[in-house]
């Protein structure tokens, strides 16, 4: 009888152990520090935003944001590991904690910000959705696309805008929906579709890097949506949210102040109090974020300011600054005061 009691006690203890094991809500910053690197979710290969180069090193605007966060947290921009994600995998990967930051040309929308349990840490690129067609179709406007077959990636705002646009204009279309970027662009360039649609930045990048002959393809003038792309973190960890948000702002602010990776060492001695605060000689901005005083210096020194990253990654593909210029130059890039 005693043995029975032992077994029962053991069973209930087991049950208790399991039941009293709540999901430990460790802060993301602590978790990142203890594992020694930032796990960053990026695109599987979108030239200019995130793509591995011939040496297998990830390059791009979205990648630079990950490197900047690593520079801010560790003082070493190389302490990043990348998880290439398709459009459909990205949110689950972030929600489940597989990655710390999602920096993968992701559009900021209300429903994603709320019901997906995510927070958008600012806008790294202001984009809009466009259409690309082969020139030989002789199409000059998106209004002429009635009846067209359209290649699109699933699980994107693009897919929804596309349906909205054709409905609003009383036109019909046949979608060909393929998950992998490589497969969907292959299908388009093979002629399976008349039209390929995604954010204009994606169209420019795809045309420049994947088209057999870029001159054969035309991006139609209509931009049918607003697509503010930005890095994303999980709801409920404000400290980490602040770090990612202010890392992006630091890159933007550095450009406005004229600080770049080339001149920041020289400028660090400047008497301008704004620069003194930025490089960490004065004030304790780093401490407020829970980071080293030199966090923003490290970002600019190792990764560069926003403009440098843009010029390095996007300019060679034919991107213009456009609305992504500094607010002082008529664009939308505007960082709140760093004080």
């Amino acid at each position, binding site marked *: 009888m005693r043995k029975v009691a032992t077994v029962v006690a053991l069973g209930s203890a087991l049950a208790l152990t399991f039941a009293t094991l709540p999901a430990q809500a460790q802060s993301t910053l602590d978790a990142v520090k203890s594992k020694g690197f930032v796990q960053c979710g990026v695109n599987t290969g979108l030239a200019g935003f995130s793509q591995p180069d011939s040496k297998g090193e990830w390059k791009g605007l979205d990648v630079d944001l990950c490197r900047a966060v690593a520079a801010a947290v560790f003082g070493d921009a190389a302490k990043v590991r990348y998880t290439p994600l398709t459009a459909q995998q990205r949110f689950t990967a972030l929600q489940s904690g597989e990655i710390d930051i999602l920096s993968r040309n992701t559009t900021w929308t209300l429903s994603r910000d709320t019901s997906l349990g995510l927070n958008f840490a600012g806008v790294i690129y202001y984009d809009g959705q466009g259409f690309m067609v082969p020139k030989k179709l002789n199409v000059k406007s998106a209004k002429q696309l009635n009846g067209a077959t359209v290649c699109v990636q699933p699980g994107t705002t693009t897919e929804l805008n596309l*349906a909205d646009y054709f409905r609003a204009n009383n036109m019909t279309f046949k979608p060909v929906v393929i998950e992998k970027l490589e497969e969907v662009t292959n299908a388009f360039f093979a002629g399976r579709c008349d039209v390929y649609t995604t954010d204009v930045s994606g169209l420019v990048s795809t045309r420049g890097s994947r088209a057999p002959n870029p001159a054969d393809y035309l991006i139609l003038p209509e931009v049918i949506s607003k697509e503010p792309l930005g890095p994303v973190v999980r709801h409920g960890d404000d400290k980490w949210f602040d770090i990612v948000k202010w890392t992006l702002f630091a890159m933007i602010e550095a450009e406005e102040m004229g600080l770049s990776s080339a001149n920041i060492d020289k400028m660090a001695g400047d008497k301008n109090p704004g620069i003194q605060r930025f490089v960490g000689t004065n004030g304790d901005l780093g401490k407020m974020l829970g980071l080293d005083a030199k966090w923003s210096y490290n970002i600019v020194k190792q990764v560069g300011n926003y403009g440098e990253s843009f010029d390095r990654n996007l300019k060679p593909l034919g991107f213009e600054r456009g609305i992504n210029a500094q607010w002082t130059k008529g664009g939308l890039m505007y960082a709140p005061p760093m004080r």
Partner: protein
Amino acid sequence: MQLSLRDARFRALVFQVVALGAVLTALAYLVSNTVTNLEARKIASGFGFLAREAGFAIGETTFIAYNAADTYLRALAVGLANTFRVALLGVVLATIVGTIVGLARLSPNWLVSRLATLYVEVLRNVPLLVQLFFWYAMISENLPGPRAALKPLPGVFLSNRGIALPTLVTESAHAWIFGAFVLGLLLAWRIAVWARRRQARTGRQFHAFWAGLAISVGLPLVVFVGAGAPFKLQVPALAGFNFSGGATLTPEFAALLAGLTIYTAAFVAEIVRAGVLAVQRGQFEAANALGLHRGLTMRLVVLPQALRVIVPPLTSQYLNLTKNSSLAVAIGYPDIVSIANTAINQTGQAIEGIAIIMAVYLTISLSISAFMNWYNRRVALKGARA
């Protein structure tokens, strides 16, 4: 039974209770943990999203009309119908191709049997996903665009948008013709039953098959001619970007169907071959000694015995084919997984979406199993343990 662990029956009971308790506890923990985490992270949950507008378009639909203004539930139903369509056709075609290849491998003809061997060995050893990419690339890269479509037959267009086929313009007479066909089938079945009973009673044979064929084809033909031969085709024509009119078999569907059929047929072929080889040599010889010719030997002696061996593994292949149809995602065929994935991504409700996918495949697979088990009991030796 004594209340002591020395007692074997009591011990067994205790272990079972403990095991069951552990499983239930683990399950309860997982569920409560998930719910807590969902709430903590403010992630929406529940099946309410099914009634919301889906907002995305679907490339091809089977039986169910759909547009972007319909609900997620309807979108999922479209995906389910698409899965059924490719799985059903795949099972039928794989059985036919597999049986032919399997019998060909047993052929005394050297060339035929070697070709069949080659087919089986190559196709079952290349991963299905690779084969799907291969077929899809063959269609979308090698065929010309719609404006330069190939015309293998009048009214049939082959392009990288798929195969455009003419369709029959339906008229009221066609319902009567179909009715006549069904009536013919019923009559043919009655004749077959009558012929079998008469043969059992008197030993006299009757060509029930040919009589049945004549009735089931002849009857609708008479109605067709009687109604003035209504036969008008809607031929696809190039309009704007694409063909309109007629029916289109999309490259995605064609590639998926080809891949699933050809891959699964290689396995079916081996099952058929094994089944025929399992019938003892003496059975062939005995049938010969009774004076049955080759066809009758196959139909009356070999196949009924072979089927007993064939049916159970064949069931597994049917299940595999159905589940493999979820690879459709890779080449853009809108099956249930593809649609559910999109729904997951647009709503962020991964747990519900995955639950739906699992429930769907479980239901389909268990239905196929139930049907095949019923069929297996019919062909199994009476009194044998299934």
